[in-house]
């Protein structure tokens, strides 16, 4: 970057290898991928069953991942949706309370969309911080799930349909996996190729710039929360069908797992950075890890320790955090080496 004439501000084009290197360097999923490979290798060595029974692992990934995918849409805009797990529960209960299965599914999904709209209304129109707004919704919806269900599991009217739903229907794939894969592709396309989705990055990365560029920021936020609500409702519908009953306490482990998947996948909680693919990688790591740990039969607290470590590993290996960590470690040593007067 120097001379005035024909100022060379860009970098030179290289061969295939350097093209690939550049492409990789541009992605935000690098660490998530490295982590996934590590988890996969460790699992392959200790619990190969997690791979030989890959349908089970895929099922677990789909269980954790679906909600995380929808959540990512909101996080990309620098907002949070803490209400996803409660949305899942309340939509399941709504669905099971309606005797007609098809009607129940439609009603549940509609409720999910409405919850998204309400969340976005509080954030955009009323101007409440999304953490607080969705925290309120978290409690409200959980309570609503208990009230609607009379505080007990609601059994599906057509249990057999539910049991059939849990069976593979496309080769070894169950409907859950297929829906998960479709949701992933749809969302991935949405945030990479559709203008509205692409502009999520602008809303999260530099909101001022998004406003100035004439992007309808408020509408984008509405869209994001509706995606999140809809996908959570979808997860609730799938869970209810597979279990043949809706439990108002459902999803108690979903909220943190889906945030963990997004974070491990390299999605920045303050918005603007990350990808749906990253979340998929994060959910896959987490899913494999959980299945492997389940197979080893270690206690749930030990499992939580391992997952916590992986999460921290994913976060501190961010180049920025890494620099800070190394720096602080050094200064700790230097600080010890003597801050006394020498003269």
């Amino acid at each position, binding site marked *: 970057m120097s001379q005035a004439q024909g100022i060379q501000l860009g970098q030179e084009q290289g061969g295939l290898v350097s093209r690939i290197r550049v492409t990789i360097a541009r992605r935000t999923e690098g660490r998530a991928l490295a982590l996934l490979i590590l988890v996969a290798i460790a699992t392959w060595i200790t619990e190969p069953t997690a791979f030989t029974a890959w349908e089970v692992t895929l099922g677990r990934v789909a269980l954790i991942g679906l909600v995380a995918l929808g959540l990512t849409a909101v996080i990309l805009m620098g907002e949070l949706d803490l209400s996803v797990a409660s949305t899942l529960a309340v939509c399941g209960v709504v669905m099971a309370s309606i005797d007609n299965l098809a009607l129940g599914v439609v009603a549940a999904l509609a409720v999910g969309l409405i919850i998204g709209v309400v969340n976005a209304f509080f954030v955009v129109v009323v101007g409440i911080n999304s953490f607080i707004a969705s925290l309120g919704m978290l409690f409200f919806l959980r309570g609503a799930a208990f009230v609607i269900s009379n505080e007990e599991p609601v059994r599906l009217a057509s249990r057999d349909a539910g049991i059939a739903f849990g069976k593979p229907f496309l080769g070894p794939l169950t409907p859950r996996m297929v829906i998960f894969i479709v949701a992933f592709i749809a969302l991935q396309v949405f945030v990479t190729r559709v203008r509205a989705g692409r502009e999520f990055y602008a809303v999260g990365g530099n909101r001022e710039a*998004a406003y100035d560029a004439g992007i309808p920021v408020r509408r984008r936020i509405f869209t994001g929360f509706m995606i999140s609500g809809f996908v959570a409702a979808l997860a609730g519908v799938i869970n209810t069908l597979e279990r043949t009953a809706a439990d108002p306490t459902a999803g108690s482990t979903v909220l943190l797992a889906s945030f963990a998947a997004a974070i491990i996948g390299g999605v920045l909680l303050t918005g*603007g950075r990350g990808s749906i693919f990253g979340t998929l990688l994060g959910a896959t790591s987490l899913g494999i890890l959980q299945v492997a740990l389940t197979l080893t039969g270690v206690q749930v607290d030990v499992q939580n320790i391992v997952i916590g470590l992986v999460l921290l590993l994913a976060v501190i290996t961010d180049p920025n955090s890494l620099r800070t960590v190394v720096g602080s470690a050094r200064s700790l040593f230097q600080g010890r080496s003597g801050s006394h007067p020498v003269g």
Partner: protein
Amino acid sequence: MSENPTTETTRQDAGGRAIIEARNVVKRFGGATAVDDVSIEVAPGEIYGLVGENGAGKSTLMRVLAGILTPDHGSVVVDGRELEAGSTRAALEAGISLVHQELSLVPELTVAENIVLGTTPVQAGFIKKREMKKIASDALEEIRVQVDLDEPIVRLSVALRQFVEIARAIARKPRVLILDEPTATLTPAETDYLLDMLERLAGQGLAIIYISHRIPEIFRICNRVSVLRDGHLVDTVSISDIKPNEIVDKMVGRELKQELETSRTKVAAGDVVLQARGIKAPGVNGIDLDVRAGEIVGLGGLVGAGRTELVRAIVGADIKSAGTVTINTDGTMRRVNSYRSAISHGFAYVPEERRTDGLALTMTVSDNIALPNRSQLSRYSVLMRGKIGTFAKELADAVGLRPPEIQREAGDFSGGNQQKVVLAKWLGRKPDVIILDEPTRGVDVGAKVEIHRLVRDLAEGGTAVLVVSSDLPELLDLADVIHVVRDGRIAGTLSRDEADEKSVMSLASGESQVRGL
């Protein structure tokens, strides 16, 4: 305006009817009037300079023109038609493009996506990639900058981001291009390139409004220049009818000539207060440095030579991998190992990025000033509010804070005044050593003069001063000794008498051998 006869002629020079006019624009924020009854007009093909101290209302006026702000009174007229007030879209459609002072790119989106941001070509919601890239590459071609269209903005240098920002404005096919301090982050070569580019664009009939603190740039490219002060339009003149110092006089509203050219009387330097030996850190490859009491030592060199890294390592703000720093006061020598110990041993450090490093923008000026002075403002670890107020007021007056309202949030002040707040908070400690990194970057001329005066006063009071500056005249004006840094080493040391722009630059760029130690 009517009293100025040159306006007519210049407009004719520039080629006819005005394309954009601001008519009697008034903009108030709360009680303060940021722009007060200002009218300007710019013709196609004209480069119109806009100068004024920080807080004079330049940016506010431009934001009104671009439809980001709604004026309280007055209007914006394009081609004789009044523009819908406060509509970004209307302004864009009328062909007004603003290149912001603060970069307004989206870090994770690519160059191409940023260039078309807000106007992305779509088909049924899907982005038309080919068309998007065509628009982007056309715009980049227009300004003759080469950059990979798929590169995310985060991976670009600050300078390149600035050019992408300009490409974005160009991509909107503007008829009026407004640039707000585009050269603040550019090297001289890049600045040159930008100015040439603007002249070329103006030659194609584009009307350009150019805001800058750098008077020479104004003289190089502008046809006319307007001076704003405290929200008022002081004057609009043809550039051929005015001299640089006259512009400065109009900006600050007083004679500065004398002050500007006052050289510091050399003070007999005292003992070595700050001693750095063998400093190594990322970007710093072993530097020795002494600063004496009452001495101003300058660090010159190109951006990226390692000067900032050096001073950050010295104060312990960043980690040094080798070397020792000692401070010698009252006959005791103390090692400095960390930022904490540096501060407690009498260091003051004014960082380059004052917005992020030097100030808590949401805290009041008063609290900011109190921050490093807590121990002398508290009794039994409890802060005494009353004492803070008088303490902060005294210091704010000493640095000439404007407006002198210490209970306002620091973020409300202009860049120059924020810098004064940073200085004020350290002055309160009466530091033995003060390190200033680019103390006047982005600061207007008036504030610059006052900051220079403060630095000199400090040195005369016996403080050892270390200044990093890319502003050569500033360095030559202030420093008793200049160390020129290149590639993390001291390339040469120049005394006040030896130093001139040429000698410093040749050392900085590596054209000459080390001389004059």
